[in-house]
């Protein structure tokens, strides 16, 4: 008979990727607000965005950032209100649906999350993040159905999951997303994520994982724009992502320069300890480098921007990242690591 054992595409159940970089900010105000948010000052950011919105109450970008700030502040109900109103006013935007879905999913309301994601995909049939999230939501819904079938009590584990989702997404993802996408976009229509897969054939098709080829797994597709030293820089970044994916902490830390500027200015030892903990605790990690762009300043200095797709057993984040690299004794090392392009 036709029993075909196929390897599953994914076994772990990742959590849901929040779209952070959806609405590129053009107004200075919004850039400032975004910076405050990324610097971990959500209260100030909220104050500023409320000011901004009192002038421009309908502004989609402002309201979207406000939603993100509220997520950061663990105000899920208010964030849901903001994103829900946004998707009512701008039903053509896929991102508010997606983020609503993430918030609903975090509350264990997977059926609602599914509806939102299907809306998101209806507006943008090629929206990769929504597909990935939808796959995860289906998995979650399936798991709930299985729990009922097998009379497992899943209420406790779901609750735990929900809390860790919010904390992880906001406070210390491996790289927090950025809304400072390069190139200002004007209208409320957001730029789609970096890679746009071909339009989906059906809502049930899993697109994101299959179609967005990441450079880390396909070295043959390395972009040609990196020339000379650029090639070496790119190899280094891929090796760095590889060490991270293998959860080889020593090898991973060896990619950082002696004078590496820790993100919050903390002591190197403190930063290393945090990284060690964060990299070794998940059961598995996958880091893919997508659309890398290497800019050589001179022989010993380079800047690499790329889309970082981070996936662990409980977190799934796609974000922009910039690495400032220096060459020291023939080796490229990371001097600065920033979220954003």
């Amino acid at each position, binding site marked *: *008979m036709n029993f*075909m054992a196929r390897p599953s595409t994914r076994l772990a159940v990742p959590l849901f990727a929040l779209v952070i970089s959806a609405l590129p900010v053009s107004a200075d105000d919004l850039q400032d607000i975004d910076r405050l948010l990324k610097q971990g000052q959500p209260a100030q950011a909220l104050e500023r965005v409320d000011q901004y919105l009192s002038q421009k109450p309908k502004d989609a970008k402002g309201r979207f950032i406000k939603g993100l700030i509220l997520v950061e502040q663990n105000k899920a109900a208010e964030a849901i209100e903001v994103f829900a109103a946004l998707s009512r006013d701008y039903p053509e935007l896929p991102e508010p649906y997606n983020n609503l879905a993430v918030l609903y999913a975090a509350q264990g309301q997977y059926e609602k999350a599914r509806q939102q994601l299907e809306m998101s995909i209806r507006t943008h049939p090629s929206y990769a993040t929504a597909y990935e999230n939808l796959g995860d939501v289906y998995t979650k819904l399936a798991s709930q*159905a299985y729990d009922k*079938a097998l009379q497992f009590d899943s209420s406790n584990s779901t609750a735990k999951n929900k809390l860790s989702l919010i904390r992880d997404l906001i406070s210390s993802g491996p790289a927090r997303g950025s809304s400072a996408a390069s190139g200002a976009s004007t209208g409320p229509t957001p730029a789609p994520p970096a890679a746009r897969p071909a339009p989906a054939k059906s809502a049930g098709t899993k697109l994101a994982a299959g179609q967005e080829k990441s450079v880390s797994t396909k070295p043959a597709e390395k972009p040609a724009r990196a020339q000379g030293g650029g090639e070496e820089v790119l190899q280094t970044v891929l090796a760095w992502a590889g060490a991270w994916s293998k959860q080889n902490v020593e090898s991973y830390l060896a990619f950082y320069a002696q004078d590496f500027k820790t993100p919050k200015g903390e002591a190197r030892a403190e930063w290393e300890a945090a990284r060690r903990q964060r990299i070794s605790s998940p059961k598995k990690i996958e880091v893919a480098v997508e659309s890398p762009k290497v800019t050589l300043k001179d022989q010993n200095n380079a800047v690499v921007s790329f889309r970082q797709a981070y996936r662990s057993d409980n977190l799934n984040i796609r974000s922009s990242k910039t690495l400032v690299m220096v060459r020291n004794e023939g080796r490229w090392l990371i001097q600065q690591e920033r979220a954003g392009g």
Partner: protein
Amino acid sequence: MSRQTLTCVLVAAVAFGAPSTLSPAKGARIEVTADALLAGVYEEIVRGHLEAALQDIEGLIRVRPNFRLAHLIKGDLLLARARPINTIGAAPNVPEANLEGLRAEAFARLRAYRERPPADRVPRYLLQLREDQRYAVVVDTHRSRLYLYQNDGGTPRFVADYYVSSGKNGALKVREGDEKTPIGVYHVTESLPRQKLSDFYGSGAFPINYPNEWDRIQGRNGHGIWLHGTPSNTYSRPPRSSNGCVVLANSDLDALARNVQVGVTPVIISEDVEWLSPEDWASERTSFGKQLEQWRADWESLDTERYLAHYSKSFSAPNQNLDSWSRHKRLVNGGKSWVKIKVSNLSMLRDPGKEGLVLVSFDQEYRSNNLSNTVKKRQYWLHEDGRWRIVYEGAV
């Protein structure tokens, strides 16, 4: 890919080579049962309409929120959207043992749906129903199915069938505690309402008369074999999960209860129901009826040896064996100048066991030159050495 895989599995689940022409009997009252809905879901899956299948299974869950199997299939339909699945009950990280019961239930329910009793076939066992036996129950432990037949002027007509669970250790109960379901011809002896029972038995129970006379002769023991419902929070249960009882969903038990007559309705439990064409059934019925008529005529003839030739060497009656029975009959017949025997309210039910046994019961009106009486009689006829002989006879 996942769509194909799921389809393959479900097709495999019911591919037992059943002829596709099988269909419910004409005129049978078709209610939208959980199994019909489940079969609808299955057909959607086969046609590749997974979205419709999901909607249908959600509809089924709304009607039967405790139907764990429906939740399992819902899980499969959802999971199939995220990744390929290759079995019913593809729940990851769940011990196989936890899934086996639900899978077995899925197979049993879908198979039964594909193998509905043929419209014109009759269970071999229902040779003749008494006029007052308005319904008969036939259980198939192998298919996990209970079939309800209506007595339509002597011809059994299919009414409905239900998924049932039976003994953990299978069928052919022999002794107390073997957790098997008995095979044989029984009848409902009592109706126990919900109020008198613990929730374990659900909406009610109908005890049957296991062990019957033949079981006792065979040395079988045990007691408390019932048809009963399920705990209020349960709809799904594996095909083999009882201690020997025949267990129905509460809604099915309620439907059955409307047709059950205490002390009257036969319950025939078989491992694998044999279905006969109307011609074969009529022929068996006629042939057996002739045998019985011969016994009656031979008794009336007062040729005691011809009469006694109908009795097996292994014959027994309450407190009697063939010798004592023969002595008694010779003595009694010797004092008669004439005897008239009238048989009425006859029922003839074939035992599904492999012995070849028919349970006959009737009202016997005995008249003679010096004594008359009327008794309700039960006989077990066994097919041995090429002919039918009585192995048990007693008044009810």
